[in-house]
């Protein structure tokens, strides 16, 4: 091993990938931007969760937000939901979107090539190093949010998106699994960042590529797109993790979302790799391949979307918006029964089981003139249930605001003593009536259960 130092080799071998990787990591971690990001990711979520959990006004428009002072696990999920919409795309943009471009800005390509002697290895080292930093950032977000919640509120059971209670161990496992799942779309965005960084050189557009993509996808989510199109987006897994919090888990959209994300990650990385090996490093004025980017980067990804839509459209039962009357009725009735049981316990009434309640729901969207299908805030449902020993059937009315991604917020509309706003004394302090307002999630991919 040591003898090779004195013995000159005829043809210099490239530097080992491990050395290149370490060098790239040192370079990344020496940047103030990255250090600040790391610090923020490891501290800010804890501070945010701890501060918000101890307040009375909670971020109820984020899933699990309304449970933040009931259990420490909800805080991390609020952080997760927020990260999925903005933080993760931006983090990947700032890290992966710059690893290649930074050498263009510093004019160090030639230096690096002479030192490493293999563009392939440079690519691998840079990709792995940025991946490592991104993993560190995501781990920070997850750990910090969990730590903040557990410290401020404690390790208590978590109500899922269908109202069923997850015991502390279950909650912990599912929260960690959810964070693990969003790594896939994060990798997809990171790969797009790499592609932007390679394709656009020192122009800041490369840095913006994942952020722009995230923005475009966010806009698309607001539109009532067919479910096949929604599921074909690389960002769908950023939403689909919510399906882990129902029983049984809504694994269809999640698995599909993970697969689509991973395909994106692989395809975008491969495109970046091809583009990188083709570029001319002797040209110092390289400002990206300009119009070529369209052909080598954007078009293949657009084609990928088209193919994915086609595959999902034909290979899965996904049709229309994926949201219909039957699915909503089932979901609402299930959630109602679980939460009714929770309310009974909190009010110290005699125990009932979900089976005894026999809850059913009947929903209608926008009156008789509108088709009962799709997202909207004009869904109105009546839940009926029975109490053991009583002959009368209870009825409760809910207004549902359903978004295109399958999430809905049910808002109790009477009778007041069932689903109105009042405080309930729980062992952990006062909390709003669990039947007053709650979140739910319908499985966009499930076969329709509509019977009529």
């Amino acid at each position: 091993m040591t003898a090779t130092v004195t013995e000159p080799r005829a043809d210099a071998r490239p530097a080992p990938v491990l050395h290149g990787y370490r060098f790239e990591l040192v370079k990344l971690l020496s940047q103030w931007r990255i250090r600040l990001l790391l610090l923020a990711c490891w501290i800010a979520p804890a501070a945010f969760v701890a501060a918000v959990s101890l307040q009375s006004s909670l971020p109820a428009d984020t899933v699990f937000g309304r449970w933040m002072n009931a259990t420490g696990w909800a805080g991390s999920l609020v952080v997760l939901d927020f990260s999925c919409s903005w933080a993760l795309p931006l983090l990947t943009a700032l890290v992966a979107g710059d690893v290649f471009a930074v050498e263009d800005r510093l004019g160090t390509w030639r230096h690096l090539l002479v030192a490493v002697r293999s563009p392939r290895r440079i690519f691998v080292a840079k990709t792995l190093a940025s991946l490592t930093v991104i993993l560190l950032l995501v781990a920070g977000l997850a750990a910090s949010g969990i730590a903040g919640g557990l410290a401020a509120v404690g390790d208590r059971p978590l109500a899922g998106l269908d109202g069923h209670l997850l015991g502390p161990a279950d909650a912990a496992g599912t929260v960690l699994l959810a964070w693990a799942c969003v790594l896939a779309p994060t990798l997809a965005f990171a790969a797009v960042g790499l592609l932007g960084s390679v394709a656009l050189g020192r122009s800041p557009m490369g840095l913006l590529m994942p952020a722009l993509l995230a923005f475009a996808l966010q806009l698309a989510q607001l539109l009532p797109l067919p479910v096949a199109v929604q599921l074909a987006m690389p960002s769908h897994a950023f939403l689909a993790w919510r399906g882990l919090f129902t029983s049984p888990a809504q694994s269809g959209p999640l698995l599909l979302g993970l697969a689509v994300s991973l395909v994106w990650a692989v395809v975008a990385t491969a495109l970046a790799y091809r583009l990188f090996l083709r570029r001319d490093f002797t040209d110092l004025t390289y400002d990206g391949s300009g119009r070529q980017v369209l052909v080598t980067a954007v078009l293949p990804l657009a084609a990928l979307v088209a193919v994915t839509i086609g595959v999902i459209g034909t290979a899965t039962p996904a049709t229309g918006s994926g949201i219909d009357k039957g699915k909503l009725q089932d979901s609402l009735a299930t959630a109602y029964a679980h939460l009714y049981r929770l309310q009974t316990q909190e009010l110290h009434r005699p125990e009932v089981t979900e089976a005894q309640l026999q809850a059913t729901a009947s929903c209608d969207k926008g009156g008789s003139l509108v088709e009962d299908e799709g997202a909207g805030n004009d869904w109105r449902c009546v839940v009926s249930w029975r109490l053991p020993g009583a002959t009368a059937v209870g009825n409760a009315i809910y207004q549902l605001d359903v978004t295109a991604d399958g999430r809905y917020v049910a808002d109790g509309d009477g009778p007041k003593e069932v689903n109105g706003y009042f405080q309930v004394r729980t062992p952990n302090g006062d909390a709003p009536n669990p039947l007053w307002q709650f979140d739910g999630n319908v499985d966009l991919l499930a076969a329709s259960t509509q019977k009529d």
Partner: protein
Amino acid sequence: MEEAPAVRARGITKSFGDVVALDGVDLDVTSGQVHGLVGPNGAGKTTLLGLLLGLAVADSGRLEILGTPVGRTLAVPDGVAGFVDGPGLYPSLTARQNLSALAALRRYDAGRTSGVDEALEQVGLTDVADDRVRGFSLGMRQRLGLAAALLTTPRLLVLDEPANGLDPAGKHHVHRVITELAANGTAVVLSSHRMDDLAALCSDVTILATGRVVFSGPLSKLAAESGELDYRLLTSDPAAAHRLAAETPGLRVVPGRDPGQRTDAAVVVRGPVEALDDLVVRLVGAGVALRELGPVVTPLEAAFLALTGTGTVSARNDQEDPR
């Protein structure tokens, strides 16, 4: 074993689109030689040095480096070090970190930091070893770039304008390092726009103009090729010196272009060295004291200007214009 030349290039041609950066360039550098590369801006110096580092390949021609034919990019043998267009340094790392990272990449034992410290000391940067490169001046960067090249104990060192931005102390360090390396058998190829630096450092020079070699060989030969030079004389009696110079056969008094020059009482003459010797004898004979005598431009500079056809200072000698 017969030692192969450090660089052997034959008929190297390299174009960038329509621009012919190198046009049939030959270059020979033996080990232990400091070889200067000069030429006007855009002559192709950086392009040629880039080929030596393996950053690009020639469109045609043969290139052998340290005895190994080079056919594709980044395939130059071990033992070649250097930089073109400025040293590549990472501003967020310290000087020491920059060097250690490089040493690790080139598989030199990263734990053995003495190499790094030695290199830093050789270029006189020990005091700022743990400062971030962000705050370094141009000259400090150049020196650090040289230190980076030293880490790998090169047998061929390629430097693009290493004297750029150096203060006298920095220049001293760099010159000493280069001279020492050459004394130990390393071949050094460097480009520069500073003729005095080249004259002080190089044994051989190659002059490029628009991608073609217009001269290649030892410095002494170049000085001879430069033909008649302008010399500046400072005497105790300018008027007498002026008259004596005009009377000396073979010498011509060059009229002062700059009226300001008249006041320092210098006389500028042009002619062969023998005629100049004659003038000195005459001056002394006439009781005129000679205080200073020297060429207005160095022979190298004169040759450069003449060969590249860029200057007019003393370029109107009998050299053919390369264009």
